[in-house]
């Protein structure tokens, strides 16, 4: 047996075990040695005035608005996208960004606690910009969007039905991500951000692989994260639907040449549709009424499913997980508690930390029960919201109005500007 081990044993048995600190008092040095002080580098955060960040975002949104609505140049938009990617992505390291801030805002509003105003502004500004000029944030400013924008090579057309189903994902991410954040189970929207590792130039392997996969996918399916995952996109879509100025494909009048349809990577160009005849109109109206009738069912169904899913969702919370672990261990008798000592090293870290904290099992169990209930309530609301949006989307399909020209769909158009140079009416007549 080594010297050290004997010493450890003696120590463990001796009274020194009781007092954790200063088992070995610091010596007085005869040589006059001075005890050094470790240096602790300051936080670089101090040097970044938050006002400047907010102003940078305002400026970027304004420039994007100018490029999309006034200059109407794909080339300049592309240059600006690259610039924003450099600044908001690589220099600001892509964190904190509006996509994730959804969680901070939800947590501050529903769970209490405050939020620094520049962070709240990060949430509000792109949405307000969308109310005025469409998805300007997605056009160039969002670093996540920019990465995907720049890797598009040969975008495939996603079949309408598949698209409709996949477009439910962002909705679910937003709804359940909010529930998780509000109930203190962590920021899952941040955890599923595929590109932030790229901006930090460092990431654990799974994150890196996921990011690479999204980039590869993005070469053939334009903006896969934006269209089929981004929770903030859902909010931007709502605002863009009400936008004061929509993205205009053509600067003059559409001649229905269809040239813009092919270039739009996200399938956002709405083709003209005939006015419906009387029979079709009444059929459409019938659909409308039927969907309206099942709307309460969809909402109630969503709420019910949410309630059921709530318990599973709650397992993401550390305290609920701890309670489950403790329950799996079985009831602890005094003798077992005694025997827990030597098993210390083998126990899961959560259990070790629990033992050290001196809390008792009943406390954890009741906390966990309260949390599960709160998760159930939250995800019932989330489910109801999803049901409502699904119903509204279905209602939107029963459109009666005719459309005589090609135009950019307010919701899907990310204002990338690809259709500007494609439209023959936008080309300046050569003298």
């Amino acid at each position, binding site marked *: 047996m080594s010297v050290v081990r004997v010493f450890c044993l003696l120590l463990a048995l001796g009274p020194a075990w009781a007092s954790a600190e200063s088992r070995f008092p610091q010596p007085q040095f005869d040589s006059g040695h001075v005890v050094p002080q470790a240096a602790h580098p300051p936080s670089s955060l101090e040097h970044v005035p938050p006002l400047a960040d907010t102003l940078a975002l305002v400026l970027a949104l304004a420039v994007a608005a100018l490029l999309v609505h006034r200059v109407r140049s794909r080339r300049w938009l592309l240059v600006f996208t690259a610039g924003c990617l450099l600044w908001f992505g690589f220099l600001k390291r892509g964190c904190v960004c509006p996509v994730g801030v959804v969680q901070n805002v939800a947590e501050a509003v529903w769970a209490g606690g405050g939020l620094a105003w520049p962070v709240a502004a990060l949430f509000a500004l792109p949405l307000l910009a969308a109310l005025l000029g469409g998805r300007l944030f997605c056009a160039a400013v969002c670093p996540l969007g920019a990465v995907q924008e720049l890797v598009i090579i040969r975008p495939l057309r996603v079949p309408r039905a598949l698209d409709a189903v996949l477009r439910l994902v962002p909705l679910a991410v937003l709804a359940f991500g909010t529930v998780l954040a509000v109930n203190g189970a962590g*920021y899952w929207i941040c955890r599923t951000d595929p590109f932030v590792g790229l901006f*930090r130039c*460092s990431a654990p392997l799974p994150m890196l692989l996921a990011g690479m996969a999204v980039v590869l996918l993005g070469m053939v399916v334009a903006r896969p994260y934006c269209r089929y995952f981004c929770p903030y996109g859902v909010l931007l879509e709502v605002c863009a639907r009400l936008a004061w100025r929509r993205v205009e494909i053509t600067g003059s009048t559409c001649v229905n040449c269809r040239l813009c349809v092919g270039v739009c990577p996200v399938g956002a160009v709405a083709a003209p549709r005939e006015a419906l005849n009387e029979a079709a109109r009444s059929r459409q109206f019938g659909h409308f009424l039927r969907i309206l009738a099942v709307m309460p069912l969809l909402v109630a169904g969503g709420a019910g499913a949410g309630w059921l899913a709530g318990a599973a969702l709650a397992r993401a919370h550390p305290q609920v997980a701890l309670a489950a672990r403790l329950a799996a261990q079985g009831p602890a008798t005094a003798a077992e508690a005694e025997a827990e000592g030597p098993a210390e090293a083998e126990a899961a870290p959560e259990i070790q930390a629990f033992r050290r904290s001196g809390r008792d099992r009943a406390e954890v169990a009741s906390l966990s029960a309260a949390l599960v209930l709160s998760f159930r309530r939250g995800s019932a609301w989330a489910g109801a919201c999803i049901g409502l949006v699904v119903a509204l989307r279905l209602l939107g399909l029963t459109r009666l109005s005719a459309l005589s020209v090609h135009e950019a769909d307010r919701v899907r158009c990310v204002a990338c500007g690809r259709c500007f140079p494609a439209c023959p009416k936008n080309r300046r007549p050569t003298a």
Partner: protein
Amino acid sequence: MEQGDRRMTRRAAAAWLLRAGTGALVAALAGRAASRPAPGRGVWQIDPRKCIQCGRCETECVLQPSAVKCVHGYAMCGYCKLCFGYFLPDAARLDEAAENQTCPTGAIRRKFIEDPYFEYSIEEGLCTGCGLCVKGCTNFGNGSLYLQVRHDRCVNCNACRIAEACPAQAFTRVSAASPYLLKETLS
């Protein structure tokens, strides 16, 4: 024609109403979130009194190598010849040979001061934040070695990944002006 125009204005007015309503909702959400007191954004830090050295600080950080490193609170150190942070429990000899050391990367420097005292310091560039030395020092020594988020490295994630994975809930947000929880100054 007249009628059509009036219909258009009415539609435009309704659209502006909706737009303004949504805008107000967005502003209200952001305003409500920001209206509660929040002392700046703060930065992440480990409370060394809560940490149980589970090893996740090394593996869970979004940065590789981790932004968490071991720091030495010299004021608490006993300058032991037999350092429980430095030497493995089954070390054959008390010398600097790698097989006797706790630290897998050899990040701890051991310097002779005077008989029988040695000074230990951390070479931060080598430390991976695994906490093995911290465990030894905390369990058997004075606990002068402990883990801290180093703010020259940490990118201050919106949600620290380690904080979410920490089994002991040892992470907290602290003010950016004094971003460390130094064990030697904590009670």
